[in-house]
């Protein structure tokens, strides 16, 4: 084999292993010492060694086992450098033996590294970790995304994001945050934080709906992967199923969200042939699996709303009464003014625009909403329906001023321009 071919093969094998097993390797290696940062460094060095060794000696039959052994050696080196004293020596020996056994098993069989990724996710989303850094932490630790990429997705500076990630890992280690799946009685609360972190990652990926920013689109895919992982490991948790269903419904419509000119297309006007029906069917199946488990929650309701919207487009018949009921339930759970806006839009379909406008008036006291584009767009839309053109024009004006996405801004401008013709 020529060295160029060998290099390429080594690189593609390493890439494949990184995609397939990175999080599994981190979780396994870090579970005992809780020292995530050292494990990441050790794995990075192990991957670097692989890219030197594999082109010369051929790719190993079990690349995961090879990397695990290499990373284990690096970890023991790190620990020797950092730790002295007899007690530490004993602990090191124990870790070494444990890792040795696992590495031996994994070179003789198919990969047998116990899957501790979910436990790692629970550590990253522990209540002792600042809520805002949980999603970035999960993305970095489980998927190996670098701080710069995560920072750009979450609209912060790479330095600031890097520091927050370092602090969080430092806390996991020093405060002794355990890697374990919580007991059933505490699971609901703790799982919520994990699901919220995954959804936050998904939403950040979704914001760039044009799909021009590759890093962000990947983020939505990675969030789907994590959502799948949680439902595989906790198959009877209805909210985990609900979240995955919700993400699939949204992802299924991604290709239809922009027209050929890159312009925003509202759901009511989307070309349904562009929807990914496999994803939608998978989402429907997940919701069906969740419902007999008899524990309703935010993600199941949001997924059910998505399901209702999809059904409306597919059948041409809308059950707006049911949609309003779902929003009622969601509002009772979340108390979110954002949910209240969407509920008002559904009410408009049942009781007419004036009733919906009255609801919006009631929300106007919430100061957060005065800076929230969808509030003004909803107001504009409802005012236009009652032929209050001046009011609608002004509300569109504010909505346009608040919108960041140029495609959505363009869409709102078109709506505003259409007012004159009513």
């Amino acid at each position: 084999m020529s060295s160029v071919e060998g290099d390429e093969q080594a690189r593609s094998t390493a890439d494949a292993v990184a995609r397939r097993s990175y999080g599994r390797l981190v979780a396994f290696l870090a579970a005992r010492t809780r020292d995530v940062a050292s494990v990441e460094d050790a794995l990075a060095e192990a991957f670097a060694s692989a890219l030197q060794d594999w082109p010369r000696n051929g790719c190993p039959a079990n690349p995961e086992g090879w990397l695990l052994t290499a990373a284990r050696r690096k970890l023991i080196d790190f620990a020797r450098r950092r730790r002295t004293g007899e007690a530490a020596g004993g602990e090191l020996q124990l870790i070494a033996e444990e890792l040795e056994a696992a590495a031996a098993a994994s070179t003789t069989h198919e990969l047998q590294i116990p899957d501790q990724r979910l436990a790692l996710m629970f550590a990253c989303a522990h209540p002792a970790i600042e809520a805002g850094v949980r999603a970035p932490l999960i993305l970095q630790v489980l998927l190996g995304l670098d701080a710069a990429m995560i920072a750009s997705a979450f609209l912060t500076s790479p330095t600031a994001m890097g520091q927050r990630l370092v602090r969080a890992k430092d806390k996991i280690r020093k405060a002794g945050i355990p890697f374990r799946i919580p007991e059933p009685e505490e699971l609901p609360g703790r799982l919520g934080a994990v699901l919220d972190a995954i959804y936050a990652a998904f939403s950040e990926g979704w914001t760039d709906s044009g799909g021009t920013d590759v890093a962000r689109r990947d983020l939505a895919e990675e969030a789907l992967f994590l959502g799948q992982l949680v439902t595989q490991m906790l198959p009877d948790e209805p909210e985990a199923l609900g979240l995955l269903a919700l993400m699939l419904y949204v992802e299924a419509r991604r290709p239809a969200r922009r027209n050929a000119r890159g312009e925003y297309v509202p759901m009511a006007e989307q070309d349904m042939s562009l929807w990914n029906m496999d994803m939608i069917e998978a989402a429907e199946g997940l919701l069906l699996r969740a419902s007999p488990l008899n524990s309703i929650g935010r993600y199941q309701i949001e997924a059910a709303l998505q399901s209702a919207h999809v059904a409306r487009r597919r059948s041409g018949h809308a059950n707006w009464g049911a949609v309003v009921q779902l929003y009622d339930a969601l509002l009772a759970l979340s108390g979110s003014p954002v949910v209240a806006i969407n509920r008002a839009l559904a009410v408009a379909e049942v009781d007419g625009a004036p009733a919906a406008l009255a609801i919006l008036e009631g929300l106007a006291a919430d100061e957060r909403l005065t800076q929230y584009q969808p509030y003004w767009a909803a107001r504009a839309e409802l005012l236009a329906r009652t032929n209050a053109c001046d009011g609608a024009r002004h509300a569109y004006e504010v909505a346009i001023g608040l919108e960041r996405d140029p495609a959505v801004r363009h869409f709102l401008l078109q709506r505003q321009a259409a007012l004159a013709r009513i």
Partner: protein
Amino acid sequence: MQYMLLLYVDQNAYAKLSPEEQKQGYGAYMSFMEALKKADAYQTSGRLQPTTTATTVRVSNGKTQVLNGPYTETKEQLGGYFLINAPDLDAALSWAARCPASQHGTVEVRPIWEMYQQS
């Protein structure tokens, strides 16, 4: 691992309790300590005199400054501590939740710096 549970409570509240209530409060701490001992988690503990008894010392430019009063004035004051053994943070947090001070004040949980940890 070792964790310090730092008990922050309103130090004036205790004096306002009836003797019977004071006895009950004291008993709750005794039971907590007993439970820690039974679980082999207890290392040591202490109750602090009120901050009116505090004196603060600081040496700057070789000069020792002694000040009357606590380091900072706060609504709740450090009133006591428990040093415990726990396998991980979750175990330490569940002890903190059982500590009577978490009912009428706040318990801060801090890991003890282990000697071989350089950073």
